[in-house]
């Protein structure tokens, strides 16, 4: 950005999720950043690529692995004014998933379009 000072200037933040939800902590800790970041009045989008699309799949049951099921938190993102969610079309197709399988409303975009979306950001945090 050209501005001397970031005060009052909204930047475009994109959070990129690339990993399945419970095998590692990245998905949960990414969600924690998104929720905290929502308080900063920036332009926020969240993207799900590769195995990251599994974070949004409905009907997960984590009792067997004794981990907290954080999938309801994605539904709460809208309450934090985080409502621009992009999902990579190729990742969905490769995993046999359709939009109806997901817990939230998303915009499904091609990998090529995803690259353009990334290009237009100021800050990308990739998890």
């Amino acid at each position, binding site marked *: *950005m050209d501005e001397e000072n*970031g005060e009052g200037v909204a*930047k475009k*933040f994109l959070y990129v999720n690339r990993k399945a939800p419970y095998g590692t*902590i*990245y998905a949960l*800790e990414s969600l*924690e*950043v998104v929720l*905290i*970041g929502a*308080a*900063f009045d*920036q332009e926020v989008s969240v993207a799900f690529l590769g195995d990251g699309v599994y974070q949004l799949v409905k009907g997960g049951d984590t009792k067997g692995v004794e981990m907290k099921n954080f999938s309801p938190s994605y539904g709460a993102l809208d309450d934090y004014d985080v409502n621009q969610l992009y999902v990579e079309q190729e990742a969905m197709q490769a995993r046999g998933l359709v939009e109806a399988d997901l817990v939230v409303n998303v915009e499904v975009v091609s990998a090529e379009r995803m690259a353009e979306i990334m290009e237009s950001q*100021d*800050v*990308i*945090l*990739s*998890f």
Partner: protein
Amino acid sequence: MKLGILVNEGPYTHQASDTAYQFTKAALAKGHEIYRVFFYHDGVNNGTRLTVPPQDDRNIVKRWSELAAQHQLDLVLCVAAAQRRGLLDASEAKRNGKDADNIAPGFRISGLGQLIEAGIQADRLVVFGG
């Protein structure tokens, strides 16, 4: 240029912290400003003063502390990530009823807002690991 640095992996297992350190050092040598170095996920383990690496190897934690002292760097460990992984400063240890703290010199513990703020204030936020 004003740079923010994010370190997402712990020392030794991943190269991310080494690369972040070398990058930060090189950026300072070129006259860039480091707004903040934020440690997240297992990256918080870069801030424990209890590591004892073999003497013929680099001391990653000490190296960060020394760079911070030389250049007045702001090294911040995410409080939520740190508490999960047993990284406590004196006040957090007291507040949580623990009998020890283990933060290395030059590091401080704070919230994720410090990462977002670095993204806003820095010209570039450079992410290592994860």
